[in-house]
């Protein structure tokens, strides 16, 4: 009996001496440079709070949301990196937890307009037109240049679904319209049709068609994708024409109620200037935290805040299937 008691005491002591199993946070993000950015902040978070961070990759934004939808009743993803329009959609489907601002005082570091009920906007991604100096017949400076007949068969443009419909919205904005008045944009897109060689559905493809020289001009590209190709001696040019600027906002949402406290801690961590600067240094984006600074590579592209157009994605998400049908019939058909 005495031996048994001694053994029990030893066992209890042994278990107590073992390090407690670390809490785990699962982050879903895009691959490539986006994964590197998420890892930079995720690994810093893991170190600071002594937790384990795991990463799951999404092939694209909508597949990421589809994954959240598929595991709605038993989520394994704690934090979802996505875009504001996609998280707006996810929130409308009750896929995201509410963000308890009172329990996360660190969120006060951000202007309130970036803190939404179910997600947090963290960094701005800039859009513009991209061209290759060695292949384009002239220097492009404005959106209307895309319709120049000299670009016949040299233009690649996004599909209607690219980046949540931003190509269509940009076409409308550049011609005096907006998401509630798409006619000017549609007329402009019809004028582009003779110039279009091919369409791309993802930002990865937009880079490939320009890099391979398949097209001389990409109608809409993401600065984060092209920043590494730019420079004074580079053949690549990224132009944000005058007028309203459309951005995409990298945003994060919390999906797993079982891990809500740790997820909230991460969201709070991501709002701080250090994390924002670290993420944007890799992604080449603009932090929304006013105390954080964007990387030097994109400082010249930073538009004045009043030029940034706040699109209504509740309207866009609702109308996009209809616009997509129109685009396929009128623009994508030969």
């Amino acid at each position: 009996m005495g031996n048994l008691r001694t053994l029990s005491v030893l066992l209890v002591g042994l278990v107590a001496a073992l390090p407690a199993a670390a809490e785990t946070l699962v982050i879903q993000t895009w691959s490539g440079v986006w994964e590197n950015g998420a890892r930079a902040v995720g690994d810093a978070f893991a170190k600071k709070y002594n937790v384990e961070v795991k990463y799951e990759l999404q092939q694209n934004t909508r597949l990421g949301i589809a994954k959240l939808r598929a595991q709605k009743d038993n989520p394994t993803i704690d934090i979802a990196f996505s875009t504001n329009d996609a998280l707006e959609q996810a929130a409308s489907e009750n896929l995201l937890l509410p963000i308890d601002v009172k329990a996360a005082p660190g969120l006060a570091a951000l202007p309130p307009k970036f803190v939404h009920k179910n997600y947090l906007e963290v960094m701005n991604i800039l859009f513009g037109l991209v061209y290759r100096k060695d292949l384009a017949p002239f220097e492009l400076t404005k959106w209307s240049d895309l319709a120049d007949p000299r670009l016949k068969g040299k233009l690649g443009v996004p599909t209607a679904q690219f980046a949540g419909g931003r190509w269509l919205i940009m076409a409308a904005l550049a011609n005096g319209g907006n998401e509630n008045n798409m006619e000017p944009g549609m007329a402009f897109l019809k004028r582009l049709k003779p110039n279009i060689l091919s369409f791309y559905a993802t930002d990865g493809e937009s880079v490939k068609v320009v890099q391979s020289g398949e097209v001389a001009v990409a109608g809409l590209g993401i600065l984060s994708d092209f920043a590494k190709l730019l420079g004074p001696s580079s053949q690549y040019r990224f132009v944000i024409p005058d007028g309203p600027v459309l951005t995409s906002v990298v945003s994060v949402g919390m999906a797993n109620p079982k891990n809500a406290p740790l997820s909230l801690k991460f969201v709070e961590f991501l709002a701080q200037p250090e994390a924002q600067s670290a993420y944007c240094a890799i992604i080449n984006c603009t932090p929304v935290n006013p105390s954080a600074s964007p990387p030097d590579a994109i400082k010249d592209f930073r538009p004045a805040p009043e030029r940034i157009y706040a699109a209504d994605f509740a309207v866009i998400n609702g109308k996009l299937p209809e616009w997509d049908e129109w685009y396929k019939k009128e623009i994508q058909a030969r």
Partner: protein
Amino acid sequence: MITAPGCRGCGVRAALAAPALVALALLAAALSSLLIASIGGTPWFQHYRKFLGDDLYVAYLVRSFRVAAWTTLVTIVVGYAIAYTMTQASATTRRLIVMLLVLQFFSISVTRIYSIILLLGNNGAVNRSLLALGVIDAPVRLIYNEFGVVIGLVNASLPFAVFPIFSVLERVPSSLREAAYTLGARRARSFWRIVFPLSVPGVAASVVIVFLYSLGAFATPLMLGGGFVDLISVFAYEQAINFSNYGFAAAGAIVSTVLGLALVYAFTVLIERRAET
């Protein structure tokens, strides 16, 4: 273990059948959920009505079957030629061809498709060479159309044609051809009258595999079609993933599957009848 008299091997058969039954049950469950999603909504069958009532969506279907048919035809002709060459070639050449096909089969599809773009694209090696030689004034559009998609699909599906045909051709006894030659038949006649009829089962199997593979292709039409040649799989992906419209995506997929299976069934019946006569 107690085995009923006269049922030796029943246990083994049951053990072998179990995984097959599980796989079949999973397949049936997946297809059932697809069917239910496609019918559901208010009013019932609305997704089918929309899909079949709009030229835009019917065009996906027509394009998919047209591309699959062309791909099958070209793949079978090219695949047959390769398989036949393999039967006539030395062991070393045969091994080399098999190696190339296997290598191509296991290569990453996106890389393979991208290499076609680098070859046949506007700025690809072919167009640049033709421009440099002065044969053309402007790049010829070899991809971003159905032709380009068919080229890509033929490239991807060639192993599916070569191996079944080769396995049948290999079993045709050379003595049959020799007998034909002895009786005065020329090479072409002996091929069409003896070799080809005996290889029809391999050709038929290849037709079914290549056709169904092409009908469901996704990455190739997406990348080589340049947005102009989206097939039914692209439609289903966009509706299900980008628009969360599962019912509509399912309706398109069901229509395509049913038509595809009906065609395959008709084809196999035709081949069987021919074999009987």
